[in-house]
Structures are given as C-alpha cells and as structure tokens.
C-alpha cells in the first residue's frame, strides 16, 4: 500500500505541492487526475525520491520511502517525456535494465510479440507511440510492486490503449502490483481505475474509489410547472446547475430521492430523471467547484 501524508514542496517561492495525501491499496489502479501543472508529475517524482520533499511522509507497505532506501528497488517509473540512451535498441536497454532489476525474459518476449515491437530497432528512431509501448514493455518485464505511469496512453490509438489496459489489469491481478497512473485522458481512466485522486494547484481535492465517487456525485434533470428558484436546491448539496429551456440539469451530493420528494411536494413535477456521470464530468464538477474553468 502506498501512503502519502501531507506532502509539500516549494520550487523557489512557488508552492508546487500543498499537503498532498494519497492512499493507494495493494493491487489497486489509482488514477491521479488534475488540471495542467497541478503537480501530478511532481508527486510521482517525489514517490521515486527524484525530488526531495520539504515536508511530508511517503511510505510503501508501511516502510518509509527515503532517498537511497531499499524499497525504491521495488518501484518502476515510466515518465511522460521518455528518455532512452543514445543509439540503444530495446534489446540493449532490456539487457542494461537487467543489471538493476530481475527482468523477466519470458514476459519481455511475450509482450514484444503482443505489441509487435522490433526489439532491435534503435529506440530514438521509433514513433512516439512505439516508444511508449517499449517503455511499457520494459516496466512490465521488470515486475515492480509499485508501477508509476505518467501520461502513458497519451498519443496512443484506441487499439493499443486497450492492449495496455489488458496487460496492466492482468499484471495487477496476477502479481498484486499497485499502479499509479497520471493522465489527462479521463475517459480511459474511467474504465480502468479503482480509485481516483483529483488534483488542483498542488492539492488533492478529492480522493475516493471511483464507484463511490460516482455514487456520491449525482446528476438529475427535471422540469416543473411554473417558476423555480434554484436556491432551493442548496439543501440537497448543490454543486452546479444549468437550465436548458424549462429543464434543469443539477449536479449534487445529496439524496436524489429526497429531491424528487421535495419537488413533488412543492411543485408540479413534469420530468425527473437520474443521469449517469463519467469521471470526466466528476472532474469538471470538482474543479468547477474551485473556480477552475469558470473564469470569465
């Protein structure tokens, strides 16, 4: 289990991370989502101890993660801006990483076939998508206990993305791997994450199991006869609402049954439907709550 408590970091005078708290369980895929420049990559680099925190505590399976600690050998990080040593082929890089990890040759060969990658091609001559696949193959072949993937599916086509998730889910299930994925592609994470942390301006706004998060934040559409004052919705945990024609679309945290009952009692209810919410919609709602994307 990965635990991050009150992680804070300043770059010069700029507060990059502000009391970040993350809890990712064993065999869990944790989605770290957030606005651009909110501190997702910085958080991942702190987990790897590439950056040193000003304050805060990071632990994995109860052991504190510090620079040079043995536990880091169980972590594998695939960064957003990939780097491969000059003139290295995937095979050569695999042999280099074999000196540091117990790389599985069998898994490596299997994944090469699965993704159809030429292991003897110079990595820097590969396309962006091929490079991502190569880096992903190495990370899986290394068999880490904690895998950190930074924008791993960015720029990949739908087929490859599906392959990625299939491999990842299998690894999580077979090897009890914990995975932290940071991504902008919220639709993709919606299908795969067990838990989500929403970041904004260096803080975790919300961290919850995805299903629970979807249960907590609801969306309904309704129409009533005559005038309706949206202020009345505040007692139902109103997050936001829009009025399209005579139909109100409301995002809220309170009980939808109570709202329906209230509307029936106070108005002539013409329409009342519960709508499903995607992670992306939850994300926009959460960030909208702190004013992000609402600037005039």
């Amino acid at each position, binding site marked *: 289990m990965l635990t991050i408590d009150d992680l804070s970091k300043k*770059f010069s005078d700029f507060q990059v991370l502000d009391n970040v708290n993350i809890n990712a369980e064993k065999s869990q895929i944790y989605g770290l989502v957030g606005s651009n420049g909110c501190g997702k990559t*910085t958080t991942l*680099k702190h987990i*790897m*101890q*590439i*950056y*040193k925190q000003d304050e805060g505590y990071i632990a994995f399976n109860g052991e504190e993660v510090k*620079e*040079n600690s*043995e536990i*880091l*050998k*169980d*972590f*594998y*990080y695939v*960064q957003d*801006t*990939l*780097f*491969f040593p000059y003139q290295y082929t995937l095979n050569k890089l695999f042999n*280099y*990483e074999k*000196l*540091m*990890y*117990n790389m599985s040759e069998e898994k490596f060969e299997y994944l090469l076939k699965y993704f159809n990658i030429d292991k003897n091609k110079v990595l820097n001559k590969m396309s962006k998508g091929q490079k991502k696949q190569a880096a992903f193959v190495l990370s899986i072949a*290394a*068999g*880490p*206990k904690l895998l950190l993937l930074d924008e791993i599916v960015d720029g990949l086509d739908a087929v490859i993305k599906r392959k990625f998730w299939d491999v990842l889910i299998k690894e999580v299930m077979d090897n009890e791997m914990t995975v932290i994925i940071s991504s902008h592609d919220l639709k993709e994470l919606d299908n795969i994450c067990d838990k989500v942390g929403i970041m904004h301006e260096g803080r975790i706004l919300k961290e919850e199991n995805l299903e629970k998060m979807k249960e907590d934040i609801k969306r309904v559409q309704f129409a009533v006869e005559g005038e309706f004052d949206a202020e009345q919705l505040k007692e139902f945990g109103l997050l936001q609402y829009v009025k399209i024609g005579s139909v109100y679309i409301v995002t809220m945290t309170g009980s939808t049954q109570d709202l329906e009952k209230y509307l029936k009692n106070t108005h002539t209810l013409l329409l009342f439907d519960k709508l499903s919410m995607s992670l992306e919609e939850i994300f926009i709602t959460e960030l909208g709550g702190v004013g992000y994307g609402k600037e005039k």
Partner: protein
Amino acid sequence: MEKKNNFMPLLVYSIKEKKNWVLLSTVIIFLTTLLIPYILRADEEFFIMLGIVELFILVFINCLVDNSFLHNESKLTYYRSKPVTLKRLIIINIVTNVVFTAYLLALIVLSVVFQGVDYEILQVFKMLIPWLLAIILLVSLSSILSGNTLMAGAMTIFNFCLPLIILLVTMFIFSILENIVRGFSADVLIDYFINNVYKLDYLYFTRYTDGSIDLAYMLLLPAVLILISWLLNKFIKRRKNENTGFIVFDGFKYFVAVLACLIIPASFSISVGKYTAMTNRIVISALLAVLSYYIIIAFIERSFRISRSSIKVFIAGMVVFTAITGGTVAVAGRYENTVPLPEDVKMAYVGNSVWSANSVTDYLEGRSDETSSFSEWKRNRSIVVYEEIDNIKLITDLHKEVLKDQTYYLDPDYYGMSNFVVAYWMKDGTILIRDYSLTPEQEQRPEHEQKNEIANKLFNSGDYKKQKFYYIYDEEYYSGRSLYAKLINLDNYSAAVEDIDLDNLREVLKKDLVNLHFEKAAFAELLMNYFMHGKETSVKEQGYALEIYEKISDEDINYLDEIYLNDIFINTLEYLK
C-alpha cells in the same frame, strides 16, 4: 524483483560502453604521437607533449559527457528512477574514467617507447596523474553543482584554478597594502607568501616534474583527492534535482560570483602598480567589482534584474574582503617603522631591485637551481650584499633616514630610479625586505646630504668594491686567471687599445677607485644600482670605456664588466694615453 548489489555489473557495463571512445582516442593518440612525427621526421618530444594535451581534452570531454545526465530533466529522471543511487552513478562514472585515463596514459608510454624519446619526458607523469585524477573528480563535483553541461565545464576550470584565484585576490590585498603601509612591497609579500605559506608548487605538483616523489607528495595527493571526494559526497546528498539554471546551489553561485568579481579589479590593481593614486585605484576597483558582479549574476541567473539576496551577498562579500584587507593593513602597519639592530643582521642589501633581494633569498633558501658558490652567483647577477657590521650599520642608518624623509636629490639632467629597496637577512633566519617609492627633488636639502654621505661611505666600503670590482679587489678570484681589458672609443665603438693585461692596469684602477666619491649624486647612484650613471656627462667628455674580460682560450672570451671612464678614472686615462 530487485538485484541487491549491482555495482560491479554496472561498472563493467559502463567500461564496455566506452569502446567507441577508446577506439577514437587510440586513433587520435596513435596519429599524433607516432604516425605524424614518423612521416615528418619531426621532433618526437613535441608530439608526445601534444598527445598529453589531447589526453587532457579527451578525459575532460569524457567526464563531462558521462555526467551530462545531471543536466537534462528526462535523462536525470530516467537514471534517478532506477534502483541505483546518484552517488553510485557518479562513482561508476569516476571509476570508468579513471580506467579510460589509465588506458590513454599507457598509450602515451607506448608512444614514448616506440619513438625512442628520452624517458625523462615521463617525469611529467608525476604531475600529470594528480592533475588528471583531480580533473575527473572536479568534473563530477562541478556537474553536481551546475545545472548545465557547459557551465559544468566552466566550473571545473574555475574549481581547478581556485587556488590561483585565491592567490590573485591575495595579491590584490597586498597591492592595496603596499599603497597604505610605507615600505611594504606587494612583490616581496607575494614572494614570501608563495614560498613560505601558500605553496602552490606543492598543491599543483609542479615541483615534482623534475624532482623525485617525496613524503609530501604521498600525503598531499590523497589529501587533495579525499577533500574533493568529501565535497562531492556532501553535494550529492544536498543536490535538489528539481533545480534548473546554470548553477544549482545558491551558496556556490554566490561564492563563484563574489570571487570572480574580484578577478577583474585585482588584475587592474596589480597591473597599474602602486604608481596610480590610491583613491583612484580603490574607486576604479570598486566600480569594476560591482559591474563584474552584476554581469556574472545576470548571466548565472539569466535575468537582468538582480535579486535582493544577490545584493546582500555582494555587500557581505565586500565587507569580508574589506575586513581581511583592513586586518592585513593593521598588522603590517605595526612594522612600518621597523629597522633592525645592526648586530642582529647577518647580511644586507641596498639598491633599487626587489627582484635582486628576492633572488638572494631564493639562493640562500635553496630554491635556486644554481650550483655555483654565493660569491660567483652574486658576481653573475651584479648583486652587492653587505656583510661587514660597519656597512650594515650604515644601511640601517640610511634606512632610518628614508623613513624620516622620502625624497632625494636628483640632478635635473640625469635619469633616476625612485625605488629604494633595503633587505636584511637576520641571524635568526628571518628576512626583512622594504621597498620605498621616493620622490626625486632637483634642489638639495639637508635631508639629502645625510643620505648622500652614507651612500658615499658605502661606495668606499670593502664589501662594495670587492663585489662590484671583483676582478680588481677579490684576490681569490683574481689569482690564476688571465684577465684583460680593452679600451673602447665611444665615438665609433671601436677598440682603441686591445688586450691590456689587467696585471698592469689593476694598480692604476685601484688608485682611481681608492676614494670613490659621487658627492651630492651618491644616493641617486645607489638607487641606480651603482651604474655610475650620474657621471654620464663626464664619460662623454672623456669618450672612452674599458671592457674587462677573461681569456679562457684564444677563442673563448668571457666578458666581465664595462667601466665608463669618467672623471673619476683620471689615472687610468693617463696610463692608457
């Protein structure tokens, strides 16, 4: 999943990865140290030295390239995300480069053997190996300190030259001191500082290029390497990888900026010497320091806006510099009027040359390569050193006169030197050298009379005559030599009379020199290093000079001195007519 100890496999891998560099270097060294001199039939030693220079460049570039991962975010993230500590990555680079350097050195040795060059050239390895080891460590240290590979290269040079920069700043302090404290010479102080306190020849191992390795070498080399390694370890632990910019550590950035901003004013102050007014020097130096600091900080921080903290550091740096300079001046000021007791002095020098006084010290302290006796050494350099107690007393009296009054009489027609240098080599082994800048005056005053009187007495001393006119007065020198003189007509520089046996001329010359009196020009003559310049007009009147030489064989002639026959040499001129 992890491997516990991956140091050796990674090291072997890293060394194997050097194969392209090894091939390239082999070709370069082979071409320049073997093939080109063979084709050209040229001086092999030159090409071996060229090979050594190439070796330096290759090692320097290799170290920079290997540590460049520290200066690229994605590279650094890749390597730092692997289960290898930064310290271990740096150590692997260092060991790999040491192995690579050893290979290149072996290539140079092979070239020396194949070329049949004198093995003496390999003596330079005693300096070369410490330099290369220091550079390998310093590149790593500078790469850790810097956020950019080019800056890491520049910082390596800065760090390597740091002892020299400190020396330059010390010279700057001494150059200020010599303007404030009368009689103190920056040249003398720096000479003493280098020879007795700040032994750069040890630190840079330059003294071992033609000497054997001693205990100091065996202790100093590991000490230097341990110091750099210790700093490297400290900074590896403290490095914040998120920092970008040319220099990662603020402390080091300011250290570089403050020291570097003193280089230009120091160079200016030293080059203009003490003849520029003190106030002007201080004002110009301060302005240059401010400007240099601003440019350096603007460059390092890549901004024309200087931060408040940079200004504070500069002010603090200048306060420290002023305090050190002030302290040095205060200490030196206590000895401003010190004149030793004659009985404590073993030898004394008076003249105009700090260089002469320093070289006597070098000879006495064994720093000169000369194997000749002290008398012969002085003769070869025309240096007069007084050893008789009466003469030493005269010199201390003259010194006191100069402390009382810093002017002297100089005939308007004559060119005069204004430096009065006095040096005492004390019986207890200490040395006192003073250098005064005197003001020539064209009107004789009572203060000048006393100086002239003492100078005239020194000219007639046995010490002076035996050293200045050794071919006449030094019996030990004179016996068994074939000494001759040649009369030169100064109108056309032709020989009027040749091969005059000095045996015949010696007594006549002695008669002329028995009472060597320069009257009111005596002190000026002393400052002219006894060239008898003051009698120039009378030389022109007489029109002759006497060239003294030793005839070793018919072909081999050793010229000893040239005496301009002025009106002092009446008897000699009469004799030669």
